[in-house]
């Protein structure tokens, strides 16, 4: 199976690898895993006072498509509101990266990581 040029690009030069302070009240952390293949993905978002995502970081242990999917969404997330971020669908990720059917679950993982990060952030804000 051949990876698309876009996947290779993100795989070789992943954007926004790293971590944000998970105890920061403005940081939401989403952690998900793919039981189909054992990939694990951590995605973090940081919002400013206006509720706009100003930073996003990820760390993924998985195949090239999983790394590319998370790298791509960190780029997409910056500048979006939480509502807009919530709208990101795995099909958009798969389309952008030209993922073959057997790798669709990697884009599902990235979508679910976004939702988990948003849920974590909302949970924190609710408690505060």
């Amino acid at each position, binding site marked *: 199976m051949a990876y698309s040029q876009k996947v290779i690009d993100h795989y070789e030069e992943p954007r926004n690898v790293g971590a944000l302070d998970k105890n920061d009240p403005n940081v939401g952390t989403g*952690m*998900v*895993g*793919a*039981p*189909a*293949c*054992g*990939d*694990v993905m*951590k995605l973090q978002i940081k919002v400013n006072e206006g509720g706009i995502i100003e930073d996003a970081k990820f*760390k993924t*242990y998985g195949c090239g498509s999983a790394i590319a999917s998370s790298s791509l969404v960190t780029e997409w997330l910056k500048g979006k509101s939480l509502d807009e971020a919530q709208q990101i669908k795995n099909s958009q990720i798969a389309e952008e990266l030209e993922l073959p059917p057997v790798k*669709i*679950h990697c884009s*599902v*993982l990235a979508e*679910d*990581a976004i939702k*988990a990060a948003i849920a974590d952030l909302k949970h924190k804000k609710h408690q505060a």
Partner: protein
Amino acid sequence: MIELDLPKIKSLLSTNYFVLFKLDAIFDIDQNILYNKYLNLQKQFHPDNFINTTKELKLLVISLSAHINSGYTTLKNPLSRALLLLELNGIKLNLSRDTALPSSFLLEQMELHEAIDDAKSTKNVFLLENIQLQLKEKEFLLINKINKLFNQGDLLEIKELIKKLTFYDRLNDTILLAFEHI
């Protein structure tokens, strides 16, 4: 020279691995018995035993040999053995949309991957062996639990544990790869 006809080989090619290896379809199988049965099957159906037969039969014997190999690999590995048993019981796991796992488990996974990365980049064989040992222990406990559930016939409960086993399986592969890079 073994007398074997085409229909017999064809039927062996389509039997499930437990039947092929003449083993009870249970999770708790003896690895030594499995290995001996594997050697015997490979000896019995070795392509060299079928030199004086038709081309069609020769080709089928080669396929059967491959079928025996993949049967051995499948039955030997606890994860693929568990999945096969569930499938024989009519339970097909579709795990691709199932990404929610306990966060403590995912955190542990992240930490194990990070530790492997560290060991790899510092070329620390001792540390890597240590992680491998830790992982074997965790896997051992998990496999025991799965075995218990199979014995109780609690097939649906097994699903959650099998999800975890996939991650350990993956970590095992990652560790083996890391050893090659040190």
